[in-house]
């Protein structure tokens, strides 16, 4: 099962991950994702900086689970244009 989550902060995400203990899940911390790209001039000089989400994104392949672990479901989400996927 694959879950995509957006936590309120990096600290909250790290606490949730730490609470899982040693495990066989695959956890990818994406951080504060870029929601609007930066722009550049013709010489590749940055004109505007990117705008990042205030939420902290984490994607997980839950090995052996068919539902979100306790305390994770509230933060799960289904993005329209995912910024990350698994092979």
């Amino acid at each position, binding site marked *: 099962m694959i879950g995509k989550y957006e936590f309120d902060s990096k600290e909250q995400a790290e606490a949730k991950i730490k609470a899982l203990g040693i495990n066989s899940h*695959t956890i990818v911390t994406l*951080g504060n994702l870029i929601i609007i790209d930066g722009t550049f001039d013709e010489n590749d000089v940055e004109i505007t900086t990117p705008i990042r989400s205030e939420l902290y994104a984490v994607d997980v392949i839950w090995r052996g689970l068919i539902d979100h672990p306790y305390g994770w479901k509230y933060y799960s989400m289904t993005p329209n244009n995912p*910024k*990350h996927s*698994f092979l």
Partner: protein
Amino acid sequence: MSLYTDIKILTTANGYKVDKLYSVKPTNGDGDFTAIRNTTATYENSSGAIVSAATDVPRLDYSDGSCPTVLLEPASSNIFSNSGFSGAVSGTPGTPPTYWDFNKSGGSLTVETSKYSAGNKLKFSTSNARHIVKESIYLNASTTYLCSMLVNSDLAIALREILYTSSPSGATIVWYINGVESNFSTNIPTGDSVISMKITTVSSGYSQVFFGIGIYGNSFTANITFDLPQLEPLPYRTSYIPTVTTSLVSRALDSIIDSGTSADFNSVSGTLYLKAKALVSSGTDRVLSANDGTAANSASIVYDSVANTVNGVYTKAGVVIATCTAVITDVTATNKIAFTYEGSSFKLYVNGSLEHTISSGSVTASNVFNSLDSNQGDNTLHLEAKVYEIQSYSKVLTLLEVASL
């Protein structure tokens, strides 16, 4: 008597199925490893093609020659968008792949089938001209990335003329040709090579990654093909991770565990043997261990975090009893490492030579090991290597016997 008779567990890059890497011995299945990888992954098959293995299927990789290895890699991601160059159209100047742009377009582009057949590779052809594509990538702060590609060139040309980046402020870049650190003005050889840049960032920001012909400002007459581009948050190249859209794509780590039962080990007296190439020469300890299902009681072969160092480690009740150490020429080359333990004697052999003996401490009083794992017994410090062979004996091999392996 043949040593084969004494082997309790013998595993080579041989038979497999979903979630299983078969061992040659024992033949009753007790020595088979459980293979874990939460995603698909690619590897080079015996024909030289890059192909995909399904989730939990071990990869028998032929990238180092005709003898396959069991490929055990860390998790990684490819940050490049559209690494398969879809959308590219052959022509003069041609059309760049989707999400890539021309930086210079003074030559021709030919779209060919990649070594990974589901993708394309790009051939740049110039006649005293420059022809370059680029992609804009956002890099995080305080991170090491490796940007790498397979190239085929008919011209010995400086690295910086075919692969370059404008990285965030403060970033350092180290260049490599076929894994050997090189100056960016060093010419690549004609024919096939792997070129890469290790980018270590201080601050976050955009990086423009360029590849093609004539990036540094000179014009050339050349034909150069680029294939399997990968930008990953690791200091070395791992197996190819194909990407299609702008979405970052990740591969999960490999693990092989749970080989053997208590009948296959003797924690009082034994030999652990590994013939393999480490994927990287330093960084974090990487472990193959016979253990009791924990890291507390184990006999381990360790690729140390210190460059080109290997250890034989015996741990009892959570206390390290002995650490035999050897510094060798290159852990990323094929090495045969053996660790023996009995009573208060611990010995580490590398390529048939005794490297270190420790005669203090003591092994456990009873047989407690029941599993052979590509980690330290608690699902941490996973082995990252190309594995030719793993052997476990419930006796101490002699120097002559180790030398014969």
